[in-house]
């Protein structure tokens, strides 16, 4: 059984929908700018990847608006687009044959911030009953499942920025256990004042003010990351089931997955990323020589960049494979980061072009990586590796393969 990606839905700061996003990433066009949802001028960090052209009532049923956080509205939109893209009509499929597996890292900050304000100023009776689930990590899975009538095995995964890849891995597992179609991915958003300070508290958010020079993974001047909102939702299917419903076009195959956890600090043992890469390759039945491009995690923090460069070098050798971090244009999207990178990688495989790591200019020689800088690079591509790391030790890797050309 192979697991195919048959549809994608993208909600990104530099493109609402797959086509505008892909065009922006190829051109290295940034979706970063000063936060405009509140007065950010007195905060130490001011830049974020905001989705400014999303008008929720155009995309989300009216009945769902009073009960959803911005993150869930984006997730619902991406999921609907992914199903449409996959030409999968949930009403024509069996409800228990469809599942939903999403990742989430932030929950519903904006919604909760507003309800907490009511709690303090008007008392508990003014707090929306919908707060009971609107804040919750599993809410995107739940709302997508309810809206589309998908009653098969469903779950939510939380592993900071690595969680989105873990969700895809668990979607694959769910399909292998007998659910033919699973909607999966991740979307986050936390750009209200409370969400913003919570992100700043992590200590790694860039305080730079030039969007083109704020998030510089693997650059000599790396000094933190820019957070963003959005992500991607994908439709994953068992190849036989996709074939049976007449869906022959696919983006590619989810060929290998692995997740590892870092050892405790001070243990002296190496971080788990290299092991995740090797395990994912083994899972895919491939070797390092089969990988044509790596979509790196790209933390944008010097010691983390060095560790990732080391892991890539250990597996592929010095300058052994092209590496790119297109997420410099969107910011780090937490649970949305991995799935969006997967979409980007699938488009790269389809079109034979690697988008650049926009903004980065100068990579330290000792990193030993072939980072795609400046402009996109054309190359024959068959296999891509996507990496993601989540704060506090999560490492995840997935291997994607281009669909076999039909003969």
């Amino acid at each position, binding site marked *: 059984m192979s697991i195919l990606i048959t549809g994608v839905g993208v909600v990104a700061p530099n493109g609402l929908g797959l086509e505008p996003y892909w065009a922006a990433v190829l051109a290295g066009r940034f979706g970063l700018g000063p936060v405009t949802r509140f007065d950010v001028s007195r905060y130490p960090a001011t830049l974020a990847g905001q989705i400014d052209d999303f008008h929720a009532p155009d995309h989300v049923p*009216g*009945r769902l608006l*009073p*009960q959803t956080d911005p993150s869930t509205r984006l997730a619902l939109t991406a999921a609907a687009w992914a199903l449409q893209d996959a030409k999968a009509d949930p009403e024509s499929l069996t409800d228990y044959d469809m599942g939903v597996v999403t990742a989430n890292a932030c929950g519903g900050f904006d919604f909760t911030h507003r309800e907490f304000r009511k709690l303090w100023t008007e008392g508990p*009776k*003014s707090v929306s009953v919908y707060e009971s689930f609107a804040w919750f990590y599993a809410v995107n899975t739940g709302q997508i499942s309810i809206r589309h009538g998908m009653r098969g095995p469903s779950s939510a995964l939380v592993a900071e920025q690595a969680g989105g890849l873990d969700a895809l891995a668990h979607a694959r597992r769910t399909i292998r256990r007998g659910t033919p179609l699973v909607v999966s991915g991740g979307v986050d958003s936390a750009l209200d004042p409370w969400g913003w300070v919570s992100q700043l508290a992590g200590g790694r958010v860039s305080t730079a003010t030039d969007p083109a020079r704020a998030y510089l993974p693997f650059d000599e001047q790396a000094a933190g990351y820019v957070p963003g909102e959005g992500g991607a939702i994908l439709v994953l299917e068992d190849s036989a089931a996709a074939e049976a419903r007449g869906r022959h076009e696919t983006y590619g195959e989810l060929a290998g997955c692995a997740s590892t956890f870092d050892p405790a600090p001070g243990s002296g043992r190496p971080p788990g990323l290299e092991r995740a890469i090797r395990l994912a390759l083994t899972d895919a039945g491939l070797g390092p020589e089969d990988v044509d491009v790596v979509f790196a995690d790209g933390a944008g923090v010097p010691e983390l960049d060095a560790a990732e460069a080391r892991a890539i070098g250990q597996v592929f050798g010095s300058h052994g494979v092209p590496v790119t971090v297109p997420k410099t244009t969107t910011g780090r999207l937490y649970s949305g980061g991995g799935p969006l990178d997967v979409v980007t990688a699938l488009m790269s495989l389809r079109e034979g072009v690697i988008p650049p790591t926009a903004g980065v200019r100068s990579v330290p020689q000792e990193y030993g990586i072939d980072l795609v800088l400046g402009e996109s690079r054309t190359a024959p591509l068959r296999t891509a590796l996507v990496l993601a790391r989540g704060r506090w030790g999560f490492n995840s890797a997935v291997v994607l393969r281009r669909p076999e050309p039909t003969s």
Partner: protein
Amino acid sequence: MATLLTIDDLRRVLIECAGETDGTDLSGDILDTRFETIGYDSLALMETAARLESRYGVAIPDDVAGRVDTPRELLDLVNGALAEAA
């Protein structure tokens, strides 16, 4: 005599609290239409009851709100309490 709640007041509160259901005409005669039919579940009714309480000062316990089937029943409940208090 206390100001009584009209169906239009209730309609406004319903939409405020739980949104509008696409494809259902709330502007029509919904007095005896079941909440279920126009897409309002028990959570929507709890939210509506809380809003009615803060706006009209009528306490509707959650278990009572969950048992109300139609806008007419809810109106009678609220207006009965308002009349009693007056």
